[in-house]
């Protein structure tokens, strides 16, 4: 009897000890989960992005403010009732999808599947918005702090540039990998890839051919390399004693190269073919900045004559003529349907400073209006004036037009925020 009591007591003690251990383990695990959730929350994981109803909120942290201005940047719906959930949403003429500085913006897809992607500069996170819905979703939450520039080399393939600990340019080429287990369309992926050579001074990409061209600064000058984004498909097609070049892939067979511009000096421009053969386009033009249409039939370029910035146009079958607008050729894009039509952001005024140097140094900013330039007959027509019509100043850089020719995306040079312009009213 006494022995039976001892067994019961020992057994009960063991069971109690086990329960106590399990309770302790439960509390420990709960604490860990709570910490992980806090960390994820701190990084903005799963945080919703502005839904364009009422005040817009930022995404990454509490520093992000609602900087959307009234009168634009808000999706409206077809019934003009903000609360009518069933109504079709209408993209505003001028849309600022994020108030956070971006490293780059791109537009892809056609018709109703047209969408934009942009990279947040503080986090390197990639965001996407369908232009028919307007909801901005984070599609990559991989943290790459202080991304200065981003380029798209095909859907989901990106090149991001930031500074390393020595202040040198580091370039990361990667792709967004969506989680396989998730079936939701808006699942957040990770950005995975590898670093390219250090000191890449110029990057250009082509969404269609997925081709990437970049210029690496070397001890002997610079080399230009093309890659399809896969391993061992890099090819050196350009060498130069000088490293200050800008590049733009016009089409799979042609890359535009021109020297970094200054008001004080002359520059040259070439087109490189796939084998690296150079064709001279412009030689010794003061303040040369140049934009060429993807079909290589039209071009716009700057020539500084007596300290006046002139914009000149050349189009197949037309004579070279001066465009009666004073702007930089890099603020222009060609219509994909008709390369004799260009859309140019034109400063309302250009201060009396050395240009484009002072603009590139960030000392001068413009308030641009958008104009349509007809290279065939030389006519120009204003498309939209953000300052007059929306009371907002935008200094356009890196404009890109979509395949349908319906939208232009760009960054504002002053805030580096991404913008979308619907061309048709």
């Amino acid at each position, binding site marked *: 009897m006494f022995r039976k009591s001892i067994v019961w007591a020992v057994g009960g003690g063991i069971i109690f000890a086990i329960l106590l251990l399990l309770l302790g383990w439960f509390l420990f695990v709960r604490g860990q989960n709570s910490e992980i959730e806090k960390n994820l929350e701190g990084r903005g994981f799963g945080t919703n992005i502005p839904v364009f109803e009422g005040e817009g909120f930022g995404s990454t942290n509490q*520093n*992000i*403010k609602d*900087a959307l*201005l009234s009168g634009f940047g808000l999706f409206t719906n077809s019934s003009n009732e903000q609360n009518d959930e069933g109504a079709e949403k209408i993209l505003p003429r001028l849309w600022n999808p994020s*108030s*956070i*500085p971006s490293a780059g913006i791109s537009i892809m897809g056609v018709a109703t599947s047209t969408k934009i992607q942009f990279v947040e*500069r*503080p986090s390197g996170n990639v965001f996407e918005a369908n232009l028919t819905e307007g909801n901005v979703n984070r599609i990559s939450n991989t943290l790459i*702090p*202080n991304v*200065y*520039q981003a380029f798209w080399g095909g859907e989901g393939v990106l090149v991001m*540039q*930031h*500074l390393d600990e*020595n*202040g*040198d*340019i580091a370039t990361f080429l990667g792709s967004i990998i969506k989680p396989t287990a998730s079936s939701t369309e808006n699942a957040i992926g990770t950005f995975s890839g590898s670093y390219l050579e250090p000191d890449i001074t110029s990057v250009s990409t082509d969404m269609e051919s997925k081709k990437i061209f970049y210029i690496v600064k070397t001890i002997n*000058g610079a080399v230009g390399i093309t890659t399809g984004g896969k391993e061992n498909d890099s090819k050196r097609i350009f060498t*130069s*004693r*000088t*490293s*200050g070049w*800008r590049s733009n892939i016009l089409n799979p067979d042609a890359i535009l190269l021109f*020297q*970094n*511009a*200054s008001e*004080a*000096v*002359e*520059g*040259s421009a070439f087109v490189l073919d796939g084998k690296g053969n*150079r064709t*001279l386009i412009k*030689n*010794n033009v003061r303040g040369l900045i140049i934009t060429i249409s993807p079909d290589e039939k039209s071009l716009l370029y700057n020539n500084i004559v007596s300290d006046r910035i002139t914009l000149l146009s050349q189009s197949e079958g037309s004579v070279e003529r001066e465009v009666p607008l004073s702007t930089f050729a890099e603020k222009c894009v060609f219509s994909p349907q008709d390369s004799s039509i260009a859309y140019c952001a034109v400063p309302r005024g250009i201060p009396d400073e050395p240009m*484009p*140097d002072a603009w*590139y*140094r*960030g*000392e001068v*900013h413009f308030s641009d209006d958008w104009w349509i330039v007809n290279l065939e007959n030389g006519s120009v027509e204003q498309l939209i004036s953000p*300052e007059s019509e929306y*009371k*907002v*100043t935008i200094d356009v850089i890196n404009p890109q037009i979509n395949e349908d020719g319906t939208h232009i995306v760009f960054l504002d*040079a*002053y*805030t*580096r*925020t991404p913008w979308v312009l619907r061309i048709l009213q």
Partner: protein
Amino acid sequence: MYNFYMPFVSKKILFALILIAVLPLLTQAQLLLPNLGSPVSFILSPENPGPDEIVDVRIESFSLDLNRTTINWLVDGSLFAQGNGLDAIQIRTGPIGSETIVSVIIRPDEVTEIFDQIVIRPTHISILWEADTYTPPFYQGRALPSSNSTILIEAYPDIRNQLGNKIPNNDLIFTWKKNGGIINRISGRGQSSAIIDSPLLFGEDIISVDVVSLDNRYNGSSFARIPSKDPHISIYKDDPLIGIMYHQAIPSFDTIPTSDITLAAVPFYFSARNSNDTNVSYVWEVNNLSIPTDPRDPSRIILRLANGIIGAATVSLDISHVEHFLQSASNAWTLSISNESAQGNDPFFRRTN
């Protein structure tokens, strides 16, 4: 006794050898003879025409009165123009690798006929250059030369033979000139690039290059004006979230909407590898008081409001090169610092009208 007998085949070979030896001389003679002792000389404008370019072709003579003479112009063997005293024509060159033969037939009297010709082979030479001076990462403007800096210069010749094959740089002779004087140090066969000194303070140099093929058949030239510019200082906010805001230089008078700010200076156009190059010396002052900096990071200072919510600071900065004393620049900024501004601490505030 020598045997002079040669089989038939050997005679053929001998004839072929003689022909091979003499033919180039004949060909050369064909090209050169018209000019040897010719009473006329050709003048081209431009001197070394490029492809698809309008060229003025003019003839001069010291022994003939061209004004009273009938001149027939032939281009590639076809009559192009003729007339009394017609001493100049305009033609358009072909592409690189092409040859255009311009000939003149002059009949000063009924018995004399003078023939001369020139072969125009268009070439193109581009001169590309940049200064070996500092500009910040992602800067899209040209690195400009300042006094005592160096310049990287490169000639990019596009010279092709009649088959359209590009003549490699190693088969070309480059003669570099600075303001008309030959720079022997960097000239020679295959010398397509060079490092040269920048112009003197406030000066401008004209650097030119003459390029000629080894056989003298092809030549071209080009030049570049290279000015000397003053170094330049801009300062930018170094934001913890987005890095150095190279896109927003801080103007001379500005309001800083935070209680503290890190300022990063950029020494444009100094002979430096980076902004913290040991060859570059920074002297920061805030309200006329010298500010010590981190010796490893002298291009940056932190401004912080000690008390209160509003403060003003006059920030001045002198940057000089420790070796090249003419490379120096200074600038000053008046900054109102307030942590109660309309924008609060938002680093992304927008301009509005």
